[in-house]
């Protein structure tokens, strides 16, 4: 699992590459726990290369959801593969989180 960071003004983009399982979700959690992340207006998660997400990986996003909301930081997922989207959908997260098909749409949210 690789996490590439890209900052553009008030937007932070994290590109996830690989499988987000129990062990790799720890490093993602470390990234999302950093206090300065709350200074962004928007955090975009690029899921183009995310092949698999385990419940532990979902747990990381879920645990930060409330914190982001309280701080007024928007969390947007984009470029999600069908397989991964299905996991979000079954769990009901698609209605709770902002998931859009493309980067353009994510930028305009």
């Amino acid at each position, binding site marked *: 699992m690789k996490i590439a960071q890209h900052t553009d003004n008030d937007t932070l983009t994290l590109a996830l590459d690989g499988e987000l399982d*129990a062990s790799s979700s720890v490093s993602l*959690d470390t990234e999302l726990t950093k206090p300065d992340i709350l200074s962004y207006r928007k955090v975009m998660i690029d899921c183009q290369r995310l092949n698999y997400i385990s*419940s*532990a990986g*979902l*747990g*990381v996003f*879920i*645990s930060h*959801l*409330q914190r982001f909301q309280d701080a007024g930081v928007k969390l947007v997922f984009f470029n999600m593969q069908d*397989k991964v989207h299905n996991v979000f959908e*079954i*769990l*009901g*997260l698609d*209605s*709770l989180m902002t998931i859009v098909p493309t980067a353009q749409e994510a930028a305009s949210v």
Partner: protein
Amino acid sequence: MLPLAALSWLALLACMLLRASPASAAWIGVPPDWLILVTQAVFAAATFTHERFRPDRLRGAEFVPLLRQLLFWPGVLAGVCALLHLAERLLSAHLPERGPVLLNAFYVINLGLFVYFLARTCYTWRTLVFFRANHRTRRQWLWFEMLLGATLLFRLADSGAPNWLMLPVLALLAGMGVYLSAHQQWVAYLNRRQKWEVVFLQLAVLGLMAVFLVYFLHLQQDPNLAGPLAQHAFLVLTSFFAGFYAVMGLLVTLFNLPTAGVFEQKREEILSMQRLSQLIQKGQTEKEVYSLLFDSAVHTMEADAAWLDLTSDGSAPSLEYQIDPPTRQGINRLLTDYNIGHIEYLNNDLPNSAGFRALGLTYGSLIVMPLRSSNHHYGTLYLLKELRQGFERENLSLLHIFTSQTVVRIDNLRLMAEALHNELVKEELKIASIVQQSLIPKTLPVDSWFEIRWHSLPAREVGGDFYDFLQLSASRIAIIIGDVSGKGTTAAFHVAQMKGIFHSLMLLDKPEKGQPLQPSKFMAMANQALSHCLERSSFITASFYIVDYKDRGFAFARAGHCHTLYYNAITEETFYFQTEGLGLGIIRDASYEKRIKNMYYDYNPGDVMVMYTDGIVEARNAQDEEYGEDRLRQLLERSHYLEAEEIKQSIIRDLEEFSRGLPPFDDQTLLVIKFKNAQPLV
């Protein structure tokens, strides 16, 4: 051999006495010279052979007791010899007519004692020669013995054998004796005190030989001696060898005395290394092992000050020996500045190094020795000496061995602790597994209007999947299936919680009062209950059903759980229920209830409902493909007409075929319900 020696000695005594007293000789006859010589030779040969085959008297490397033993009995014998000589003088003064008889009797006794003494000495020397000797030396000794034996015959053939034949052989034997006397390796194994003791013991042995020698030389001139003297080549050569070896041993020991200190130090080092390696393996705690290392290092290196810094991850405190904190901190800081704080380092001239001179140390030499295994740094040992050039290169390698052994032991201790801990954890897991097994319903609800079958396979000892049933009344049954995020023990705890929540909330179901429990309400309340005990990153998915025979239908809600697979026997369609619903514990306020939907469905006899966890549809094969919802649906399309048990079996079989022996990656749980066209039993 001993009886032969005794017999020949008695024969010799008899011969000599006969010769000394003409009166009895006239009566029996005068024994000839050759008979005396033969008895002498037989006696010597028998005594030597007897000594030769005695078991080795040397125990380990206990040379001093060996020499003491040699000295004690022969020493007593020499005393007896001197006493006998004096007694003979006294008696013959009082009984002049008996003089020759006494003299000859005592001569034979003394000769016996001397031969025994020689045999003892020669074979004690053999033990010393053989100490750490190779095969060649042993062969040389054998030749020496054989040639010596041959010289016994020389005297018998005295008249005939010409001198030119005997002389070279005698010279050769004397040479061999000298050569063999050079084997004095044993001296090196004595310490200083033992060497002094050995010097005196050797002197005493030589003194004893001198007593006999003086006696025999003195006797040679005595006209009263009745028989030929036993001064044949054999005794002369053995005496020569015994004497020469003692002299050589004495000299070697004497010359070794000045260097005994150095040898002793080296020996001490080796011994303490042996001691340490044995002790260290016995050290039961890290603290004990480090103390052993520290004490041995300080003692062996004769350090004037020392300390042992340990990294903080261990349980042992750092150790100190005669070092004051400012010096210690100063040296530590300096080594860190030089960036050599954790490598092997030897400085034998501290006053000449600018950095150390600036510290104003009273020490001249320093060794720094890290304690390191291939992947771990345990600490660093520092030794100081006041002398310059205080440590040698060998000290460094010796210390290296000390520290390596310590590190091996510490590694072992830690591995052992870890193994023990793992064993405990395994044991606890076993208990958790047993507890969880007891939570799984053992008896299925049985009724005539439906058939239910289950299958459950946890990926580890304890799993995160759960399911439960509750027969609410004859016509109503509640079913729950779910999955706690994560695996293992934590998940298992939440499974137990869910079971409690399920059974508690079912008490709220009161259909007789017109208040049946709505599945969405059930989920909302479960979510509320869980929000207090579920950690923030955990969540639970569940599907909850209440099947009612009277209504011929069921109500259900899905909280983020896998879609339920259904076969409708009227429309002959196989499909998944597409309902919305958020997993439990994802949002933890009242707004959750809005995100969960109730669904009602009328069932027909012959309908099949398949409930499962993601371990089933996400099972993978060697090509890393998922089993998938589609394959499951297609399977049910083909097998819906079977009984619930057979449908369950066909799914398990298909799953096994798909994963081809790969172990399950996640817990797998499967429930199959088939509705029947029959009345409830009750």
